[in-house]
């Protein structure tokens, strides 16, 4: 305050006033309610209507849920306990719990197998979903499909193990040669995988498995050791392909010529008779065998999970290929992709399931039969891949043209540009769409109940509602199915929203 005005001002406050608290109506609970619930007359009416609606909903459902009976053996017993009250009979869930989850044919003593597979699914999915986790965990993700197959379907561990071995061989070849020449690596990998599968098919067959009888095992282990030594010796001086090739050649020669002779010597030495074809010896198919379960015995929520997980994971690579095909500069490839995608997207899934159920068999070689679950997986995978292809195409189209041109100007060829520049960005953009498609697909797996497969909905509509004990327990069962699907799908969509926030690299 300047001196000049000192005489004209009676009082001047020297310090600032402490801020007064906001009016009661503007702060705290009341303020919040005024702003958010009763801002205007119309708003207040809306709030009251909403409260009344919630009240109606709760009074209709809460007593029914809270008064529910959990222990009873049939609906009649349930009604006896209730004595005319209206309440839920959740006892059906308790009594048919295993059927709802595993179907009605899966042997009860083996429920632990799909159980373990289910728990391991989270371990396998974790490094894919959360990329802060150590990358080493991806190895388990790669093993998981084969492990889960073995656990759920049972049988010998060797078929999934050899299948995995084929993929490993293919990957190794691709890793070695794909860096220089994508096509060579790619096709070389396919050939390597096919060779391994063919060899393992022989090993699994009757005459092949004597190879693994006690003496045969020893003879061939010696051969493998010799091959390894040869590889190690040759590796220093020659190209890797020559080292691998000669080691393989040595092993094959050993196995075909030396091993049979050696086997007899060893057998004589050990005093084992192998004249009976090695029946007394341990053969390959005796190790790691779980009681096999037929595909048609799968059911319940497990079937929904199997279909959902398998079809989504298979349709991703297929969808990427289709999307790239649709964006391709080669007219023929583009047209094949467009026709496939538009055809699949134009028809409802149920017609494709009809195809799997009644038509697909006509297009297979006469006499072949493969089970319904596999046919359904093929059709649902095709269905999902068309939708995923459209999502990824959106991602590819959303990338600025400069990215493609920059990749070209660096001298990258098509495969390198796609793998290193385009796809990582395009897939990142497409993640929310891919998750949406996956959730939709998982929900659509309930449609298999229409072609008489006993998934969760099929179990409810078929064996459980039709049984004399539980005929008429409608709401409890469908509410259970609804809650199960809600938890799964809502969880996935929350994950996708988290991922979107996480991946937002643009600085806003």
């Amino acid at each position, binding site marked *: 305050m300047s001196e000049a005005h000192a005489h004209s001002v009676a009082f001047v406050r020297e310090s600032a006033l402490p801020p007064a608290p906001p009016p009661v109506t503007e702060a705290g609970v009341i303020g919040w309610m005024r*702003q*958010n*619930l009763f*801002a205007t007359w119309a*708003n207040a009416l*809306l*709030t009251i209507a*909403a*409260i009344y*609606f*919630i009240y109606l909903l709760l009074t209709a459902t809460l007593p029914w849920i809270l008064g529910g009976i959990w222990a009873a053996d049939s609906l009649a017993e349930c009604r006896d306990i209730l004595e005319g009250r209206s309440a839920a009979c959740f006892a059906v869930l308790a009594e048919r719990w295993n059927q709802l989850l595993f179907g009605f044919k899966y042997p009860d003593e083996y429920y632990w197998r799909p159980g373990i597979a289910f728990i391991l699914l989270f371990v396998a999915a974790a490094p894919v979903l959360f990329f802060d986790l150590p990358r080493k965990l991806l190895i388990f993700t790669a093993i998981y499909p084969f492990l889960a197959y073995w656990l759920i379907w049972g049988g010998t561990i060797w078929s999934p193990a050899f299948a995995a071995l084929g993929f490993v061989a293919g990957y190794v070849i691709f890793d070695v040669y794909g860096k220089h020449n994508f096509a060579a690596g790619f096709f070389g990998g396919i050939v390597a995988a096919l060779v391994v599968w063919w060899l393992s098919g022989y090993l699994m067959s009757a005459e092949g498995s004597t190879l693994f009888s006690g003496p045969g095992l020893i003879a061939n282990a010696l051969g493998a050791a010799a091959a390894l030594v040869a590889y190690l010796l040759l590796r220093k001086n020659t190209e890797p392909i020559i080292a691998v090739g000669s080691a393989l050649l040595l092993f094959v020669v050993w196995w075909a010529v030396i091993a049979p002779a050696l086997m007899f010597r060893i057998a004589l030495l050990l005093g084992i008779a192998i004249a009976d074809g090695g029946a007394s010896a341990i053969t390959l198919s005796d190790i790691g065998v779980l009681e096999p379960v037929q595909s048609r015995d799968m059911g319940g929520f497990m079937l929904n999970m199997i279909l959902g997980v398998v079809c989504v994971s298979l349709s991703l690579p297929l969808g990427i290929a289709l999307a790239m095909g649709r964006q391709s*500069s*080669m*007219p*023929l*490839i583009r047209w*094949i992709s467009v026709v496939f995608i*538009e*055809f699949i*997207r*134009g*028809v*409802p*899934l*149920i*017609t494709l399931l*009809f*195809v799997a159920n*009644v*038509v697909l*068999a*006509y*297009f*297979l*070689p*006469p006499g072949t039969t493969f089970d319904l679950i596999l046919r359904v997986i093929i059709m649902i995978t095709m269905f999902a891949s068309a939708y995923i292809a459209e999502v990824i195409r959106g991602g590819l189209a959303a990338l600025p043209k400069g990215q493609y041109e920059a990749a070209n100007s660096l001298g990258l060829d098509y495969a390198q540009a796609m793998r290193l520049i385009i796809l990582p960005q395009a897939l990142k953009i497409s993640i929310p769409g891919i998750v949406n498609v996956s*959730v939709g697909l998982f*929900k*659509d797996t*309930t*449609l298999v*109940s*229409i072609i008489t497969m006993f998934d969760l*909905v099929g179990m409810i*509509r078929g064996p459980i509602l039709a049984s004399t004990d539980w005929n*008429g327990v*409608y*709401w409890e069962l*469908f509410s259970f*199915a*609804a809650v199960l*699907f*809600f938890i799964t*799908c*809502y969880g996935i*969509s929350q994950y996708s929203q988290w991922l979107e926030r996480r991946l937002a690299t643009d600085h806003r």
Partner: protein
Amino acid sequence: MTVLTDPPKESFRLSMLINDKRYRSLTFQAIALILLIMAISYLASNLMANLAAAGLNISYDFLGDPAGYDINQTLISYNSQSPHLQAAWVGIINTLLVAVLGCVTATILGVFAGVLRLSNNWLVRKLMSGYVEIFRNIPVLIWILIFYGVITVSLPGARIYLGEDPERALTLGMFAFTNRGIYVPAPLWGPGSMIVVGTFIASIVAVFAYRSYAKKLLFDTGRLLPTGWPSLLILVVPTILAFFVMGQPIGLDMPDPLANRFNLRGGIQIGAPLIALWLALSVYTGAFIAENVRAGILAVSKGQTEAAAALGLRPGRIMNLVVLPQALRVIIPPLISQYLNITKNSSLAIAVGYADITATLGGITLNQTGRAIECVLLLMLFYLIISLSISAVMNVYNNAMQLKER
């Protein structure tokens, strides 16, 4: 001095098919074509071999044979002696019926929920996001079965409406809610009723004419004519006049509790499967549409609203003239693909026994005749035609609505 010369003309070598970019794509396409032809011929030869083994052939003659099954809900004349083709037509019309009904109600529900999700009322907002999340995350098949259960399990039998002294009277004297479906009055078209209908259609045309005249007047002279109540008058008054002048030709045929001892007679029975399917598809798709509507409204930047307010427009006009036209551009394409989804999801009718095309042609006809390939092909063809025509409409719309820049 340097002389630029053309590079030496390369003669075509075979290795160029792999190494030269100009020819490589030809190689790939040739390989793809060969693979495609091989795959198709493999499948076709398998098909031929299988058909020959089963003693079958591909023929559509069965469409002319009598179907031999009854359909409850039909819009066109049909009885069990009608040919399979007629049953398929019944199915097609039923599919279109439930699809159109579903589209209308889903749109209403979706717009309602989508707008309310943006309300500044916290409770309403949460309620609507609850609706959207619950319905989006549960398979539509389960919803269809739940709604079917609501009708067939929870509603009473028709018996309680029957007799001189019924346990329950008809709602408003015209509606009956039973576990077989809902009975509503049926219109009776007397002589002269076409004139009333004609008048009504003419008044609809007149309303549009009046509105465009009002708009033209506004743009030419700046005079603003009221449009609300005159439109309503034009719409209602001539029709009512015609109705009474013609001597009330249109009557209502009420469901009659007394005509029969076992069931209601008269009126129109909307079967339980149709209602279940219709409601389930509406609320399920409505949840998706709500998200589209919300995204569309949020896509209009706040500056647009503020600029309109700065021009002095009232809130209602801001919504109608500024926000909605821009939001619609974003909303319509996903909306149309939701309509497509309703049409495709209506094929789940088979789960509750509604006679749509999947249930007639792909269900009973297929099982009775054993003509799996033909039936499934026709079924796919029908859905493909629907999908492709809706996409064509969407493309036309998108081109028309594209922002015209320079």
